[in-house]
């Protein structure tokens, strides 16, 4: 049977090798190879979308064979309702980002090689069903990000790259410990996630740590949660995100916001929920509080930002807060809303970052208000009308305006969270986030686009066809999913139904 998942994962790797082999003086060849290397997975992704069986919650397109026999480690790849939207998002965004980063001039070969390598890492994380394989791809994905930010980034790129790398590494160390712990404490020592999920193996056991017996499953849960929370990012661990976004080149921060943030929540849903249901129930209150803090904290900080990218970065923190609130509610609408929000946030934030990139490539600064108080951008709507139009769509999508995709997932998350009597007060507080979200995004739209034109930018030329080509699919997705979200929603329905049976 054609190993479609592995092909999708390793085509970019082949692309990378091909790109490295191209002669240095011909950057365009490298660009076209990487376009092809991302187009093929996109095509396969569409094939997977067509042939994905929506009625069953079991794994599909499975590839499973022994890899390291003595430790019972398998090369186990497969996708279900949870990972399909993420896979599609990864494939789509990678394709668009490769086209969006046409403007990179220096070190083109290195840039595209790293980018394709990153795509392999991401695909692997979403398809891996063996903890060891998952962890392997998780680390693979880290490396190219470090180089992409560290080499092609902005002024303080090295600081940002190091901070990003060490932060996530700290998380993955905890994950490693838990992985080994799980391998050791599971009856037939295994890394296979599905087997680990059977029989609540870690519930009763305790482990002696620092002199007293600690409950094993809660320990595992906290370890995994911190490892993934850093990625999401959840409130206390989020400080790497503004740095990484501000310093990363456009396409990289699109991928960072569009896909990498989702790995955290995907990880929690893939591992914490099925394997440690009791611990998840025990910590649901804790997660909900963190989610609400995320929403409000991100929104408040975003309001005070002067840099466009930092503002969007903090808005991502706020929107990921919705995902956590949705997840922690354990209701059908909530969790479905959370996974849909992961997809929608991916598309709308990708649009915002691409748009910020468009203006950054022309003017090489992103100040709404310059640090010295003078006007950064001002009233450029009159100069670049088409750009303003698309920005408005992106803006109102992430704002959660009905008719666009942002609203659907936000509404589902809040309806779901509200129908769980325990969390109603949290939702009332969290709804303040919707309000603040509108505030800082519209404030930015006003300061940058409306009002009197800032003379500095009167010769700003409008958006060109290449940029429109990258933004068009996202616009279509945002509008179509806003009107009729079922195409994505029915992908995940049955899987989430099975997942939630653990918690009712």
């Amino acid at each position, binding site marked *: 049977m054609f190993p479609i998942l592995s092909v999708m994962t390793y085509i970019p790797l082949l692309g990378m090798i091909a790109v490295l082999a191209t002669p240095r003086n011909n950057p365009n060849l490298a660009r076209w190879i990487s376009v092809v290397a991302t187009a093929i997975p996109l095509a396969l992704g569409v094939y997977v979308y067509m042939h994905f069986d929506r009625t069953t919650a079991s794994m599909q397109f499975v590839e499973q064979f022994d890899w390291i026999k003595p430790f019972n480690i398998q090369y186990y790849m497969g996708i279900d309702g949870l990972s399909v939207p993420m896979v599609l998002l990864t494939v789509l965004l990678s394709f668009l980002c490769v086209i969006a980063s046409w403007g990179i001039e220096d070190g083109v070969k290195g840039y595209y090689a790293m980018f394709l390598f990153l795509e392999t890492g991401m695909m692997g994380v979403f398809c891996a069903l063996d903890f060891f394989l998952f962890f392997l791809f998780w680390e693979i994905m880290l490396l190219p990000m470090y180089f992409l930010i560290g080499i092609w980034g902005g002024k303080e790129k090295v600081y940002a790259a190091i901070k990003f790398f060490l932060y996530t590494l700290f998380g993955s160390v905890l994950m490693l410990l838990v992985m080994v712990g799980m391998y050791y404490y599971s009856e037939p020592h295994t890394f296979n996630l599905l087997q680990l999920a059977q029989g609540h193996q870690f519930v009763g056991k305790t482990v002696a740590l620092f002199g007293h017996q600690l409950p094993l499953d809660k320990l595992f849960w906290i370890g995994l949660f911190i490892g993934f929370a850093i990625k999401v990012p959840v409130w206390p661990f989020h400080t790497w995100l503004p740095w990484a976004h501000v310093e990363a080149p456009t396409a990289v921060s699109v991928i960072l916001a569009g896909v990498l943030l989702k790995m955290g929540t995907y990880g929690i849903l893939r591992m914490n929920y099925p394997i440690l249901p009791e611990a998840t129930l025990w910590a649901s209150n804790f997660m909900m509080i963190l989610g609400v803090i995320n929403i409000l904290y991100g929104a408040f900080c975003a309001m005070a930002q002067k840099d466009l990218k930092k503002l969007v970065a903090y808005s991502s923190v706020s929107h990921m807060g919705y995902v956590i609130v949705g997840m922690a509610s354990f209701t059908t609408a909530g969790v*479905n809303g959370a996974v849909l929000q992961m997809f929608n946030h991916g598309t709308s934030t990708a649009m915002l970052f691409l748009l910020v990139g468009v203006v950054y490539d022309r003017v090489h600064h992103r100040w709404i208000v310059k640090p010295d108080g003078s006007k950064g951008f001002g009233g450029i709507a009159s100069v670049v009308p088409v750009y303003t139009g698309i920005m408005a769509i992106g803006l109102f999508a992430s704002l959660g305006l009905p*008719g666009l995709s942002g609203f659907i997932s936000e509404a589902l998350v809040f309806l779901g969270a509200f129908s769980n009597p325990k969390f*109603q007060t949290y939702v009332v507080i969290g709804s303040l986030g919707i309000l603040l979200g509108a505030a800082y995004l519209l404030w930015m739209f006003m300061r940058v686009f409306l*009002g009197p034109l800032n003379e500095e930018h009167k010769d700003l030329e409008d958006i060109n066809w290449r940029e429109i080509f990258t933004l068009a699919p996202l616009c279509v997705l945002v509008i179509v999913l806003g009107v009729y979200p079922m195409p994505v929603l029915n992908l995940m329905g049955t899987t989430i139904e099975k997942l939630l049976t653990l918690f009712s």
Partner: protein
Amino acid sequence: MAQQALLIALFPLVAFVIQALFGKKLPRHGDFVSVLAIFGSFVVATPIFMKLLTDGHVFDTFQVTWMALPGVEAAGKLNSAVNVVVGVLINNLTAIMLFMVTLCASLIHLFSTGYMHGEERYHLFFAYISLFSAGMLGLVLSDNLLTFFMCWELMGLCSYLLIGFYYKKPSAINASIKAFMTTRVGDTMFFLGIAGLYYVYGTSNFMAIYKAIESGVASNITIAGFPALAFIGFMVMMGTVGKSAQFPLHVWLPDAMEGPTPVSALIHAATMVAAGVFLLIRMFPLLEASHVVLPVVAYVGAITAFLAACIAIVQVDIKKVLAYSTISQLGYMVMGVGVGAFAPGFMHLVTHACFKACLFLCSGSVIHSVHTQDMREMGGLKSKMPITFATMFIATLAISGVPGFSGFVSKDRILGGALAYSMEHHGHYLIPLLGFATAGITAFYMFRMIYMTFFGHARDEHKHHHAHEQPLTMTIPLMILAALSFAIVFAGPTGIESVDHIMPVKWFDHALEGAQKEMGIAEHLSPESEAIHHHAHGLALMLSLAVAGLGIFISSITYLKHLINAESIKRMTGPLYTLLWNKYYFDELYLGVLIQKGLLNFNRMLAMFDDKVVDRIFVDGWRDITMVVKSVIGRFDDVVVDRVMVDGTADVTAGGGWVLRQFQTGKVQQYLVLTMIVIIVALFYANLGLK
């Protein structure tokens, strides 16, 4: 019939898409696309209205499953399946609203082709207006609160875009963001109400809710500590307060006058703000069931009406006067619903839509001709703009509550209801008191506006000279709207029931009774409350006539005959005047205190906290700690390990080497001596061994 009704909303939507994408390239920038679309909707809406008129009742629904999330079949459990079903509901209320909205919108579209002629982003204006109409019609048609909320926010977006239409003016964009944010506050709470509905009933469909309330479901469930129905009722009310600019969220409507006048007419008079009241009417059974919320609604309505009316007295900008009058009239409607008189409330909504749209359009044509909004620069335009004067005067009579006009009919019934409410509940006398006071003040400031604009001598010769009557495309809508302001349209020639027995016009009352039955509101009042109502209405009739007459009288002696000098009154009332002039300092309170001092400083402080504390200390702190540890270990490594251990051994070996070297004397014989010693020792042991 419901499927065709869907077309009503789709026509403007299609027009929006065409206009937004190709508007610029179409001839006349595509304004005809929007106008045709809205007229198309009007044409589709008319048969529905006719059906209501002929057989007094119309009902049809059409539903489709929008979102289906699989889950456990049993309802009420956490992971139970969620099926979001949306659709179209046509009943008496919808039919009337459809007809009224499409009519007003069409007339305003026609008017704005003239008014907006030559504007820079002409095509975008029509795109936004079409989108707005689609939103409003979608709201009226939707049979559940979710799509109702979606269209509600879509309208909020359009009002934001249209208020900020002249985006070069900073005041316009501030006004637009203010409008959006204030309504957004209301919307967020409204959304929580919807979430509450889904929690309690699992659906937000009106019909389902009416039945559930009739069967008395969920009287004991609590949401976040409050009784469920009270929570939902309060949240829904806050939605209305936000959208219909009721106190305390009314600050955005006066600033919304920054937008072009047709926008003010369409959005901020006839339709959008009315949507809030329409929501209350749709959710009336729920509000009634929660017992607590209705009085609050009544008080909010009364207070808003009175406060807005007072401010309107001192305004000099013609559109601001009308804006505050709108807020005041909306307060009336909300008060009507609050006191249980939801049929008169709905009637007032319809009548107000017509005459307020007419007033705004008249003020638009006045502004268009004299190019100023300040009444102090107008005066004596009666002769210059006869048609505009005539239509405006009719609308003013209607709003002031003069019998024979539509305003009088609905306002009188609301005041009657308020009086009956206070009599029945032996308290709350403040509501009718404020109601009658507002009626008087309304009459006063409306006639003040008429006199200052049209009567007396021209205060600004230059502008007076330029004043001219508008072309037909602008005056026809005025005339039609003025025609609709007569009482005969709604309840008979004079509007006074006792008099109208000879030629009663009962269609409106029958429609409203049908709607009430549908909603399950018992009209069967007990006999004594029947008597109270009758008595109240009689008393109300006398009072409202007296109050209106008084208002007109005072207004004419001060502004027409100038017997009382307005300036002297102003000086006398001193502080009160400044209070009113500054709109009770609400703007300063909200913008200054809440936003500038509170929110932005909090954000700056939080962002700074995030950078300095969480980032620096929590994260870089680790780096500093590792630096310290590294240097300590580094020094330890140099001093101890390197010096003592390594070099030490080197010295020892060197010393040892030195000692041994001394044996190397170079004298051969001494070597032999040593060899001999060794041999002896070896032999000695050998001998021992052998033995």
